């Protein structure tokens, strides 16, 4: 979440949105400044290339600007922006042919394998090393699984918000997360069997 200090002292998002719609570049800059870090962090889970990250972030904000008049204010500005970001990322993955080809239905039909105990990062592992391994495992997962994991685990989003964002039901979020975790575990152990012996 954004630091509360900022929320208290700065104009809220809806005020800024109104000002932007009135033509204020400064207000749009404020909105971008408010959310750029979170958007960059989100995109980082899909590509490690800093140029691509910046491009996608820029595309996200420019799209948001163009569609600002359609922002309904039923959801928070951030949720709305987030949806644009996720769609921009997924579109770009598709364009670059990097999205795994399996259809969503196929993936969701496959029962999750009965799982072995989850490996846990050993205590000696550095935070950055954990992040690197996780990133590597995530990159090998079909995009629908990667996305629910990123939204739930990194972005700490509630099931309802994930459901709204992706246009799926809460039940689907739950089952998709379940499968995604099973896949993650499976792939982690394939790539790093050394973690399999942890208690």
């Amino acid at each position: 979440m954004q630091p509360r200090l900022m929320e208290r002292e700065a104009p809220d998002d809806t005020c800024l949105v109104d000002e932007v719609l009135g033509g204020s570049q400064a207000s749009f800059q404020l909105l971008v400044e408010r959310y750029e870090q979170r958007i960059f962090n989100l995109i980082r889970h899909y590509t490690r290339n800093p140029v691509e990250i910046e491009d996608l972030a820029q595309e996200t904000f420019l799209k948001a600007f163009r569609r600002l008049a359609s922002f309904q204010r039923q959801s928070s500005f951030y949720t709305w922006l987030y949806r644009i970001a996720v769609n921009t990322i997924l579109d770009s993955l598709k364009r670059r042919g990097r999205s795994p080809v399996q259809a969503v239905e196929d993936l969701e039909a496959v029962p999750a394998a009965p799982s072995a105990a989850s490996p846990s990062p050993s205590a000696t592992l550095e935070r950055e090393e954990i992040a690197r391994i996780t990133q590597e495992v995530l990159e090998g997962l079909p995009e629908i699984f990667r996305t629910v994991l990123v939204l739930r685990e990194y972005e700490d989003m509630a099931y309802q918000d994930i459901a709204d964002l992706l246009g799926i039901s809460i039940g689907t979020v739950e089952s998709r997360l379940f499968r995604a975790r099973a896949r993650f575990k499976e792939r982690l152990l394939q790539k790093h069997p050394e973690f399999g012996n942890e208690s």
Partner: protein
Amino acid sequence: MECQNARSLIPSYLDGELTQAQAGPLRQHLLDCQPCRGSAQDGKNLKRWFAASEPVAVPAGFAARVARRALQGDTGEFPPSLAAPRAEEERGRMLRFVLTCTAAAAALLFVLSLGMRQLALPHSDRMLADSSPQLSRAIQELDRLNAAERKQKRAELDAVKTKPKAGPDAPLESGKKP
């Protein structure tokens, strides 16, 4: 609570999705049931792989650049107000203007020299202008460039005056454009 029921609730529990009324009985079951406790621990272990990593560095000036582009794209015109004008941009603008003038002057000189050579003995400006259509075209071109430059400056001045809400850098923004 039965184990099967407990197992199905554990992921939601770890994700903080259960109400107090749902979580209470599950917590009690986990205290009493070692295998289910193991299953919860397993879920927690997996979550440890998603520890937050270092934030990505956002390039300096990203927001200012994006905001400028957004507003440019919207109107299809010159930036209405450069809320945070950057030195290199100002230099670029100046450089473009100087280059334009230099190019125009060079063209003028070139055409002038051609005109001088072709004409036997030009005795007056009037004669020169009349007898060289190329020259008058070059002068017209120069006038056009100057007019365009003046228009651009005016547009920028107007934009600054009518800017609805001053940005933090607004005081720097005066009419003193090159």
